[in-house]
């Protein structure tokens, strides 16, 4: 009975996602007939080559990036909320995005405004990735030594604030052009990933999601607290390492390629819990992945301001969608939120 309801919910979400994907591809500064859109998607020949290029070279990679980002950030948010048993935890609480931002800041601000062109683009991604990986490495060292999960949460938040402070200092001394490119990077973008970088993003996200799937049983037990999880036969330390590795890969890669995208990771797990009424990870994880994709693609549609030729920064849109959800969680103080 409950499982049938879940299947229906999941199918409806998938259907909604499909509609949103087609809508997202249809929208943009260049108007393309709907026939050409469907034609390109179906791989039919004889489509206007200009239109074909825009669709397959720009819009489809953009939507695919959005799908990956939505899934990755939501899953890491879900993992963080569960392992810390804290409804306000998200993919960035451990300082992973600050690490990535520091990496990007070193390239963008440290080298002045020279960061243009394809090499610089890869330099930013690589530096951001290294920054996130360095944070993850420190985090895992801490995890092996420190017993209390709350201590780890506090250390993560402090670490994150410390890195932000260093970035502020770099911003203060950066020149105007460099500062602008860093600010633009920090507003997030789904549009800069295509071709080989999209392939690389896909290759990094998939193992992150696989680790998340492997952590499902452990996380279910950890929702009763680490002590009880241990009594149920779970290897708590191994689960922690699995979850932190997964979150670092997911949130770190997305931040490296797209810049920081806020609130998706915090809000989507709550929306999913509320809509499905589930708290069992085995059901929550797949639903969160799809819901993350839905919200991300919807945010992308809104950011293109349908009917205008302007594109708003994606980070602002996701925050505007996510913040009311977080406020709702805090105010309703529902025990059931976590």
């Amino acid at each position: 009975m409950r499982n049938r309801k879940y299947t229906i919910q999941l199918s409806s979400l998938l259907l909604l996602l499909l509609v949103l994907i087609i809508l997202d591809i249809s929208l943009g500064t260049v108007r393309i007939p709907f026939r050409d859109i469907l034609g390109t998607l179906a791989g039919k020949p004889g489509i206007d080559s200009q239109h074909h290029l825009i669709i397959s070279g720009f819009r489809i990679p953009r939507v695919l990036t959005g799908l990956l980002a939505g899934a990755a950030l939501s899953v890491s948010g879900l993992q963080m909320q569960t392992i810390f048993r804290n409804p306000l935890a998200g993919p960035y609480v451990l300082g992973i995005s600050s690490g990535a931002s520091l990496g990007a800041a070193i390239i963008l601000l440290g080298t002045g405004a020279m960061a243009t062109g394809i090499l610089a683009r890869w330099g930013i991604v690589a530096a951001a990735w290294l920054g996130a990986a360095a944070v993850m490495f420190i985090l895992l060292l801490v995890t092996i030594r420190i017993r209390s999960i709350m201590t780890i949460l506090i250390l993560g938040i402090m670490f994150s604030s410390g890195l932000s402070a260093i970035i502020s200092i770099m911003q203060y001394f950066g020149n105007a052009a460099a500062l602008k490119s860093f600010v633009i990077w920090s507003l997030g973008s789904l549009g800069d990933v295509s071709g080989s970088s999209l392939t690389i993003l896909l290759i990094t996200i998939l193992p992150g999601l696989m680790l998340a799937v492997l952590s499902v049983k452990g996380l279910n037990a950890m929702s009763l607290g680490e002590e009880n999880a241990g009594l149920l036969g779970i290897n708590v330390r191994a689960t922690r390492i699995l979850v932190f590795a997964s979150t670092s890969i997911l949130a770190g890669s997305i931040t490296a390629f797209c810049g920081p995208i806020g609130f998706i990771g915090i809000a989507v797990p709550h929306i999913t819990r509320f809509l499905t009424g589930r708290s069992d990870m085995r059901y929550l994880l797949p639903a969160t992945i799809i819901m993350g994709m839905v919200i991300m693609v919807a945010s992308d549609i809104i950011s293109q301001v349908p009917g205008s030729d302007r594109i708003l920064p994606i980070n602002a849109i996701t925050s505007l969608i996510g913040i009311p959800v977080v406020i709702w969680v805090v105010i309703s103080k529902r025990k059931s939120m976590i």
Partner: protein
Amino acid sequence: MARIIQHKKISIENLWLGYEQGVPLLESASAEVNEGEMIALVGRNGTGKSTLLRTLARLQTPMQGRVILNGTPVEALSNRELARLLSFAGPGTGTMEDLTVFELVSLGRHPYTNWWGALRDADREKINESLSFTGMLDFRDARVNRLSDGERQRVLIAMALAQDTDLLILDEPTAFLDIPNRIDVVEVLHRLRSQNRTVIFSTHDFDNVFSYADQVWIIDERRLITGSPEELGLEGAFDALFSDAGVRFDRHGLRFVRETDHREQIGLAGEDRDGRFWTARALERTGYRVEDAEEGGKPVVEVRKVKGVYRWILTLGSTTKEFTTLYELISHLTRS
């Protein structure tokens, strides 16, 4: 079916408990529990009952000594091995989570399920069996955080049962429960003896100790005293338990009562048994030592029952006073 050979389920050897700094909570404790026994652990707040139970469940490491489970020291077992031998329910488990009863109890199957935690038919059967054993089958789809304390406690026991371990350790399973719920919970635990399961639980509820426990463990002044409840009564172990707090053990009522210093004598007369019983209780509560009315030189209360209505007549020297309720009598006595 009675077993001829009894196996030691769990034993503790020369156990010292405590925290890094400061005095130990428990010194050199040793005890043995046989299969199918029910052990009640009692002692004052802060004496280390929870610490002892948590040490048995390997949640804490002792300062010294060993805990041996089925012949193996607990520290030699993996988490999964331990989870198949021992289940533990502490205070506060399952209060926060937005899980259904079925979902919570199914977590008890974790030591047996695969990497994904998938339930097989045998697991579902075990879960339903545990729920029906604790009388919670009708609550299968209810949210745990909406249950009453008594229901939640029974769900936690069901979860421990689903874990299918021979040893269950429960830290104050009857705390915050009303009397019928307390009896329910302890009876559920007691019924586990028929499945040859061993239960160790801590409690402040001496009614249950005397009615159900095979062994009582008392923690008193950093020592662990063990034995059957009657044996400990015979040795006077209960008398010492709260003596420094001015509370003594009343062996007739199997309860603890406040020691009162100046006990004035009072005589009690009357034919009606119920009337005498309850009047005596009221007078004792007020601090009188109740005696028969024959000996003179003290106030006397006579209980009369006329046409189903009680009256109390207080005689003090030559004055008498009549009361229509016990409450009035007691108020009068305490005021004068």
